[in-house]
């Protein structure tokens, strides 16, 4: 009997795990894009650099606490501290960027804050690359034990399991904040109408800052996970994941929180499982580098055929 696919079952399952791993990182970053877009209709193109600075803060913390020599219970303590440092650094960056580069342009034409966002993005990435690293890179310490765990038919590393699990937990916390708390209600109200939210007594400026801060903390966490998984970090590291996460947010429907999560996983799986599927076509053999081509082809297709994305709604009416 001829097998249904050319690739073996193991290859498919590996690609599934890889897709869910990178998808987790995309989803975490995409949430920041979608939430800020929700309240300001602004694409925060400096979000990739917010992610990058979080990654560096996490790196600095892990190295200061022992780096590759960390073991046992200290690994858990160091990870928690690295996440806190990364979240804090990203939050501080995002709040400062909002204050300096976006708020003064709140009532300017929509192109102006977009340009200033791109300016901040280029500034921060080059500041780190040229100002501190002189074109080099830093390498995250290896603190997770080697070896795989078997989850049913899936083979996952300890790091992958931690990455997927912690991402889900953070997204769960965010969802709870947005859906169940007073702050979350204020964010959703501002997203529908700034004027009407203000008439409820909501401090609109503060709510916008909180939205930036929440998205930034998730991006900082994603920065640590990225460093642990891909090891090398540099000032320009935020660009590609940033644009991919933006793609994920558009894919899911920009402005929608479930959309960003679904879009993130969908993009991760398209890059891995989707590439493998294309390779099933006789004569096609796309190496791994093609994943970026696939991701951005997908963005173009979505923008042409369903610009509102999977969960997208039409621009909310403003009273």
């Amino acid at each position: 009997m001829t097998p249904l696919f050319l690739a073996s079952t193991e290859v498919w399952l590996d690609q599934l795990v890889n897709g869910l791993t990178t998808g987790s990182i995309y989803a975490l970053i995409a949430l920041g894009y979608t939430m800020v877009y929700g309240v300001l209709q602004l694409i925060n193109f400096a979000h990739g650099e917010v992610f990058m600075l979080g990654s560096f803060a996490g790196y600095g913390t892990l190295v200061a606490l022992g780096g590759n020599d960390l073991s046992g219970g200290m690994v858990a303590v160091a990870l928690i501290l690295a996440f806190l440092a990364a979240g804090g650094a990203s939050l501080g960056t995002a709040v400062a960027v909002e204050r300096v580069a976006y708020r003064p342009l709140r009532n300017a034409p929509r192109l102006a804050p977009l340009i200033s966002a791109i300016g901040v993005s280029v500034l921060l990435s080059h500041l780190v690359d040229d100002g501190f690293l002189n074109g080099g890179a830093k390498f995250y310490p290896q603190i997770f034990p080697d070896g795989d765990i078997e989850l049913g038919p899936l083979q996952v590393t300890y790091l992958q399991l931690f990455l997927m699990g912690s991402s889900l937990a953070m997204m769960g916390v965010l969802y709870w904040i947005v859906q169940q708390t007073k702050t979350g209600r204020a964010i959703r109200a501002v997203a529908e109408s700034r004027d009407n939210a203000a008439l409820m007594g909501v401090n609109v400026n503060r709510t916008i800052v909180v939205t930036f801060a929440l998205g930034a903390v998730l991006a900082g966490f994603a920065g640590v996970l990225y460093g642990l998984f891909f090891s090398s970090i540099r000032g320009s590291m935020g660009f590609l994941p940033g644009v991919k996460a933006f793609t994920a947010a558009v894919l899911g429907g920009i402005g929608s929180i479930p959309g960003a999560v679904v879009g993130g996983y969908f993009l991760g799986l398209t890059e891995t499982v989707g590439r493998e599927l294309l390779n099933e076509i006789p004569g096609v053999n796309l190496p791994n580098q093609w994943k970026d081509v696939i991701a951005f082809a997908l963005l173009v297709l979505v923008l042409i055929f369903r610009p509102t994305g999977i969960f997208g709604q039409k621009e909310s009416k403003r009273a």
Partner: protein
Amino acid sequence: MALLSLRGLVAGYGGITAIKGIDIDVDEGEIVTLIGSNGAGKSTTLRAISGLVRPRSGTVAFDGAAIDRLPVHEIVKAGISQVPEGRGIFHRLTVYENLQLGAFQRSDAGVASDYERVFALFPRLRERARQTAGTLSGGEQQMLSMGRALMARPRLLLLDEPSMGLSPILVDAIFATIRQIREQGATILLVEQNALMALEVADRAYVIESGLITLKGAGAELAKDDSVRRAYLGEA
């Protein structure tokens, strides 16, 4: 001393000056109405009070203190709630969440019983508390908008065209509710195109034309005024 007093208020948008120096007083416990045709400056007056539009000159004093430079949320905190034109409900939030937002500035123990008060006034909102507000009918949305404003326990309630777009039966229901709210001791500034109904419910009234107050007096008196009857009550 009046609870609310506007003196020489000038406001507008861009190159347009919608109100050109108006004086209005609202005393505690009163219903005052501001009537006038479309574009006369009624909504701008309310938006200047609630802070959505910054006055270009003149003053807004509430309870003796100037509020015309405060941000919108501080004005709400001071005790002024607005039911905006077009209702301004949050379509993607549930009915209950809309009411929760009405009480956003409050942390007192009375909030829980105020939900009951609003549900007693508008029983339909209780039935639909878990629905998203966008699924409500126009009349129900108006009730939600008024109920939500009451959740703030405002000292002054600003109503912007509450009857707009509603069937005659619903208009009657909304005005019956306005009477009920006043019996509970609220102070109301009501902006209306439906002058007949507005004059009937109001203690005092102002007529605004092209951004200026042209007439003022007791509601019942203005309802008898010939020029008012011709201009706003559809009589030849």
